[in-house]
C-alpha cells in the first residue's frame, strides 16, 4: 500500500480511530496487524521474510544479553549479521553479482551462461534489515536491554509508517514510545496533519510532475542534449528530494498523530555548504546509521589520515551499494566518497587561498557560493544515481560535456515536454515546497505561533486536496522512489 492511494485514505483513519478507542493492551496488536496488512498488500508471502528477520534478531538479542562469555556474545552477533545480511544480499544482490560475474567472465573470452534467478525484491528490505541490526548491535554493546516481549519488538520492526522507506529508527527512540498509552492531543494532530499535507504536496504536486521531464531525459539518453542532461539533473535533484522527504513527512505525520515521534530524516539538504554537511542533512537516519555502525567501528577519524580517508571511502561505497544493486549506485556512492576525501585534503589549501585573496568566509555571498557549488556537485552525482544503466551513464556524461548548442534550448525544452504552463507549475510548486519546508518544522511552528497555526494547515490541506483531485484525474498514483531500495 502506498501513502498516495485511495486504499491508504481508508486504511489510516480506520487504524487511527481504533487506536484511540481501544484500551492500551489492544493498541500494539492493532498496530502490528495493521502493519502486517499494510505490507501484505504488495505481496502477502513476503511477510514471512520480515517475520524471519524479526524472529532471528529477537532471539539473538535475548541470547546475547543472557550470555556472559564475550566470545559467545560475539558469535551470536556474527550469526545474526550473517543471517540478516545474507537474506538482504540474496534478494537484493544475488542477480547483480551473478550478472557482473558473467559479464566479467565473458569479457575475458569465456562463455558463461546467465544464472540469475527470478527474484522479487521485497519492499523495504534494506530499511527493516538495518533497523533490526541496529537493535542487535546496541544490545551487544550493552546500550539497551533486550526486548523480551515479541509483540512489541515485532511492532518496532514493522511499524507501518516507517516500514518501507524509513526513517531507520533506533530502538531506544521507538520501542519505548510504542509501549506508551498515547491519547489524542490537539498539538500532535495539528502537527501530524500539517506534516502529512506537506508530504503529499511534495510528492503529488512537485515530484510527480517533475518526474515526467526527468524521465524524458534519462529514459532516452541517446536523444539527450547537454542542456537536457544538466536540466534533468537539477530537476531530478528536486524530484528525489520531494519524493523521499515527502514520504518521510507523511510517515512522521502519521506517527505523530498517534503520539509517536519518529526521527527527523531531512534538514534542508540543499542548503548545505559542503558535501559533508549535505550528508548531515540528507537521509539522516541512514547516514547516522553508517556513522555509528560502520564508520566509527572502522576507526572513524581517530586514526591516521590515510586510514580515515579509507574509512570514508568504504562507508560511501557501502552506502552506494545499499541504495541499489547496480554499478551506477556504486559509482554514485564512490563519487560522494571522493568528494569528501578531496574536500578534506584541500581544506587547508582552500582556507589559505581565501585568506590570500582576502575573501571573507563569513559573508553571505561566500555562503551562497558554497551552497551553489555543493548543489552542483550533488546534482552531478545524481546523474549517476538516476541513469538506467552504466551504458546510459557514459552517454549522458558525454552529452553533458560535449552536446551543447545554444540554439537547442527550445528543442530541449520541447523534447522534455516543458510547456509554458508546465514550467510555471514547476517553478511555483518548487517555490511553495521550499517555503513550506522552512515554515513547517516544529521549532518554527513554535516560534511563529498564531499565524502559522491558524492558516497554514487550512491552506496547505486545501491546496493538496485540490491538487490531488486535479492530478488524479489525469494520472494514477505513483510509487515512491525509495521503495526500490
Amino acid at each position, binding site marked *: 500500500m502506498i501513502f498516495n492511494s485511495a486504499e491508504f485514505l481508508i486504511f489510516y483513519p480506520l487504524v487511527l480511530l481504533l487506536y484511540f478507542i481501544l484500551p492500551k493492551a489492544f493498541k500494539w496488536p492493532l498496530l502490528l496487524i495493521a502493519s502486517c496488512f499494510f505490507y501484505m498488500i504488495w505481496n502477502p508471502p513476503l511477510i514471512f521474510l520480515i517475520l524471519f528477520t524479526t524472529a532471528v534478531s529477537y532471539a539473538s538479542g535475548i541470547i546475547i544479553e543472557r550470555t556472559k562469555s564475550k566470545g559467545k556474545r560475539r558469535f551470536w552477533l556474527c550469526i545474526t549479521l550473517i543471517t540478516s545480511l545474507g537474506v538482504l544480499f540474496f534478494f537484493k544482490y544475488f542477480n547483480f553479482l551473478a550478472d557482473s560475474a558473467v559479464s566479467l567472465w565473458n569479457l575475458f573470452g569465456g562463455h558463461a551462461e546467465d544464472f540469475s534467478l527470478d527474484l522479487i525484491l521485497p519492499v523495504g528490505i534494506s530499511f527493516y534489515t538495518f533497523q533490526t541490526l541496529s537493535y542487535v548491535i546496541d544490545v551487544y554493546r550493552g546500550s539497551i536491554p533486550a526486548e523480551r516481549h515479541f509483540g512489541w519488538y515485532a511492532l518496532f520492526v514493522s511499524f507501518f509508517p516507517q516500514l518501507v522507506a524509513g526513517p531507520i529508527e533506533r530502538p531506544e527512540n521507538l520501542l519505548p514510545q510504542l509501549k506508551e498509552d498515547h491519547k489524542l492531543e490537539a498539538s500532535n494532530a495539528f502537527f501530524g496533519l500539517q506534516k502529512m499535507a506537506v508530504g503529499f504536496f511534495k510528492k503529488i504536486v512537485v515530484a510527480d510532475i517533475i518526474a515526467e521531464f526527468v524521465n524524458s531525459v534519462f529514459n532516452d539518453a541517446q536523444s539527450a542534449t547537454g542542456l537536457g542532461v544538466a536540466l534533468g539533473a537539477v530537476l531530478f535533484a528536486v524530484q528525489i528530494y520531494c519524493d523521499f522527504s515527502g514520504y518521510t513527512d507523511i510517515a512522521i505525520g502519521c506517527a505523530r498523530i498517534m503520539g509517536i515521534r519518529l526521527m527527523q530524516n531531512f534538514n534542508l539538504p540543499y542548503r548545505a555548504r559542503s558535501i559533508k554537511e549535505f550528508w548531515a542533512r540528507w537521509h539522516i537516519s541512514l547516514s547516522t546509521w553508517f556513522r555509528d555502525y560502520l564508520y566509527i567501528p572502522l576507526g572513524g577519524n581517530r586514526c591516521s589520515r590515510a586510514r580515515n580517508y579509507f574509512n570514508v571511502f568504504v562507508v560511501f561505497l557501502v552506502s552506494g551499494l545499499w541504495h541499489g544493486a547496480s554499478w551506477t549506485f556504486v559509482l554514485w556512492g564512490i563519487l560522494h566518497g571522493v568528494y569528501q576525501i578531496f574536500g578534506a585534503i584541500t581544506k587547508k589549501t582552500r582556507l589559505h587561498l581565501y585568506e590570500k585573496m582576502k575573501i571573507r568566509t563569513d559573508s553571505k555571498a561566500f555562503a551562497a557560493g558554497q551552497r551553489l557549488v555543493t548543489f552542483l556537485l550533488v546534482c552531478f552525482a545524481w546523474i549517476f544515481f538516476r541513469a538506467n544503466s552504466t551504458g546510459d551513464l557514459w552517454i549522458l556524461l558525454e552529452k553533458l560535456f560535449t552536446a551543447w548548442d545554444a540554439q537547442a534550448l527550445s528543442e530541449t525544452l520541447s523534447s522534455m515536454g516543458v510547456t509554458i504552463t*508546465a514550467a510555471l507549475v514547476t517553478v511555483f510548486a518548487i517555490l511553495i515546497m521550499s*517555503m513550506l519546508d522552512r515554515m513547517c518544522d516544529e521549532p518554527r511552528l513554535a516560534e511563529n505561533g498564531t*499565524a502559522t497555526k491558524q492558516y497554514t494547515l487550512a491552506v496547505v490541506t486545501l491546496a493538496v486536496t485540490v491538487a490531488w483531485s486535479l492530478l488524479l484525474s489525469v494520472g494514477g498514483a505513483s510509487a515512491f522512489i525509495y521503495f526500490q531500495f
Partner: protein
Amino acid sequence: MFGSENFILSSPLMLIGIVISVLLSLCEHVFRKKWIFITANALFCAAAFVVFLAFEAKLSDLLLFVLIVLAARLGFLFLEGRRHA
C-alpha cells in the same frame, strides 16, 4: 498532463484572477479582520474556477492558478512569521 498553451497566453482572465486573489491575500496580511478576507478569497477562487472551466481552461491551468494563489498566501505568511520572529 499539460495541455495547450491557449488559456494562459490568449486570455487575460487568469491574470486578472491571480491579481485579485493576491490583493485579497495582501489585505489579509495588512488588515486585522483576516477571516473576512480569507472567506472572500476562498469564494472568489471557487467562482474563478467555474469561470475558467466555462472558458475551457485545462486542469493544468487550474493547477497553475491554485499554485500561484497558494504561493502568494504562503509568501505573506512567511513574511508575517519573520515579523513575529
